[in-house]
């Protein structure tokens, strides 16, 4: 006799069995027509196994009407949005409300998971903010999932500080202890940091990489004037990503390729690279060059700041005053430097496809599969395989987000 779900389990709304039909599923690097998705308890389950084992019919059947079904987008570098700046402390209540605002607001862009990013800041900021940005499950109440924090700095090179505050930068003369001290990593097992951006050319950084990685942190190279050999050393020691390729690093030079030269490394697996596709931070041709040289390494990031989702005007980024102009450029008021972007992740996906001429699948994977692989969560995020979290989007053929689901529940984006 097949197993029967009792009526009790049905009362919890998460225990409804949801069947999605008539969608074109993005899976295994291709589009699969004529298949169905079964969602139960916020997870994607095996439909055939469930059908023949559990003996219950779906409670809800959703017709995707021929739309593409893709995993939800993952943004692993976002400094803020909708007026919220993760690097500014206004009190615990404001930070929690700010996090909620961003997590809920990002859903309409198809973003189902994100990594709040903190720019180079004084110690107090890290100690106050980090405990509030711990990983948090995504669902209808919370909005997008918080995967942890990206600490971008302060162990970066002064000559490549971009829009960061110079007085916050520091070296790691005391090695890993400096990291523990500034981020408050005394409770190593329970910390919120998922990604760290460091410059290999800053004193003490290369020697600390091993311990950073052992603490479960993904190391990314950025805001650096490292030579190619310094950069390759970092990769050999376990750095697996480049932070916003081309920005805040030396220009590519044919005899001295610098960090960009990692795209041409052969003796070791090349790292992933975050790249901002607003057409402003990186010229479309440069995006294509990077993609052509290392298509499987592309990770789309917004590097969005507080003004994302808001009209043109003056805002702050980590305490620095910036101006968002009508053409979507954000510049530091004092020196005109580019300061974060105001692009959304779904626009990044569309632009990436346009700039590189890649397929729809590759554009989608750059915002789903690749960031999940970098963070080592590709079995539950960035995929529609059995066992994954049911975070997905319905897209039309122009890659517009039509519907967004987190933990199997549709979240209204109209």
């Amino acid at each position, binding site marked *: 006799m*097949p197993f029967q779900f009792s009526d009790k389990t049905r009362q919890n709304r998460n225990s409804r069995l949801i069947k999605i*039909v008539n969608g074109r599923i993005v899976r295994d690097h291709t589009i699969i027509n*004529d*298949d*169905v998705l079964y969602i139960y308890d916020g997870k994607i389950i*095996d*439909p*055939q*196994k469930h*059908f*023949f084992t*559990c*003996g*219950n*019919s779906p409670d809800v*059947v959703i017709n995707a009407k021929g739309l593409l079904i893709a995993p939800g987008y993952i943004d692993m570098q976002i400094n803020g949005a909708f007026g919220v700046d993760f690097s500014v402390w206004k009190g615990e209540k404001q930070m929690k409300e700010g996090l909620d605002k961003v997590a809920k607001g990002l859903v309409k862009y198809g973003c189902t998971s994100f990594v709040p990013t903190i720019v180079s800041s004084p110690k107090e900021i890290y100690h106050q903010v980090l405990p509030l940005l711990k990983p948090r499950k995504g669902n209808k109440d919370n909005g997008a999932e918080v995967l942890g924090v990206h600490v971008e700095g302060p162990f970066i090179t002064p000559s490549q500080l971009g829009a960061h505050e110079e007085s916050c930068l520091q070296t790691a003369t005391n090695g890993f202890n400096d990291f523990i001290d500034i981020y408050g990593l005394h409770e190593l097992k329970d910390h919120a940091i998922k990604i760290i951006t460091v410059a290999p050319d800053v004193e003490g950084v290369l020697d600390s990489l091993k311990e950073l990685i052992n603490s479960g942190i993904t190391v990314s190279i950025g805001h650096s004037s490292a030579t190619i050999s310094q950069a390759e050393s970092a990769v050999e020691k376990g750095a697996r990503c480049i932070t916003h390729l081309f920005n805040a690093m030396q220009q590519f030079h044919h005899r001295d390729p610098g960090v960009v030269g990692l795209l041409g490394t052969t003796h070791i697996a090349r790292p992933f690279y975050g790249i901002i596709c607003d057409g402003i931070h990186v010229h479309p041709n440069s995006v294509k060059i990077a993609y052509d040289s290392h298509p499987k390494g592309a990770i789309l990031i917004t590097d969005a700041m507080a003004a994302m989702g808001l009209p043109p005007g003056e805002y702050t980024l980590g305490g620095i005053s910036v101006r968002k102009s009508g053409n979507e450029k954000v510049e530091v008021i004092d020196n005109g430097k580019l300061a974060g972007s105001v692009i959304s992740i779904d626009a990044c996906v569309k632009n990436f496809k346009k700039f590189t001429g890649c397929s729809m699948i590759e554009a989608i994977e750059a915002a789903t599969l690749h960031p999940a692989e970098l963070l080592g969560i590709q079995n539950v995020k960035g995929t529609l395989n059995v066992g994954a979290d049911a975070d997905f989007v319905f897209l039309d053929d122009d890659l517009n987000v039509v519907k967004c689901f987190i933990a199997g529940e549709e979240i209204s984006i109209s």
Partner: protein
Amino acid sequence: MRLIIRSDYNEVSEYIATYVKDRIIEFNPTHERPFVLGLPTGSSPIGLYKNLVKFHRNGELSFKHVVTFNMDEYVGLPRDHPESYHSFMWHHLFKHIDIDPNNVNILNGNAEDLSEECAKFEEKMKEVGGVELFIGGIGPDGHIAFNEPGSSLMSRTRVKTLAYDTILANSRFFDNDINKVPRMALTVGVGTVMDAREVAIIITGAHKAFALAKCIEEGVNFMFTVSAIQLHPKALIVCDEDATLELHVKTVKYFKSIEHVIKNLIGAENVGLQGNVKKYPSPEVTPTREAFYNLPFKR
């Protein structure tokens, strides 16, 4: 027996799918009185299932009160193996329709006690009131389900060892490696299928022509187990022109003429779904020899 001949595989599939749909709708199944359908696997029913899915998507057909019994399943193959008959039925039919999983019956080739599994299957068929319509295909050697040549015509659901021909034919689904093909299967018996109130066999392709000829133009012979339908009170064969290539011209003309008479002389509206004449209109025109044999037409 009715023999319906259509021009190609697609037309055959459309015909049998429409027939199944009309039978279910006419039966008007309910929870207490479901429509019990016997189903095959293989290449013959793929078109049938595509059309049934189409009807379901159009809103023309619901499987809510349909109970199904599949004919067979390999022994020892994991249920979610891509070549198991569970997988075949899931991908071709069940995942697209609204059938209740509890109403789906497929033999379990991994049961601890295979004989008991077969006995339970037969028992379940009795419990639901017997099979209303059993659909099958035919092997090139005239076998139905896995009732290979030499199977008793009164056989019931049981374990069978596959014939060499069958293993060869199936190796194309197992990386062309005959060592990977399962050697045994659970199958409904010839008797089990003939117990159904109606039996419909799909026969398409020139490679089936010899089997079809053996099954309907020669004697009932357990070397061609489909020939048992000669003794069934309500049998239907739907085939394409290619499958008739080994039949006598007279046989083909006869069966085509039946459809012609129904359509042009009696009127389709006067004939029930299962071929029973409800009303015979007085003939106004004496049919000429040409009229009798002037075909083709469509249903």
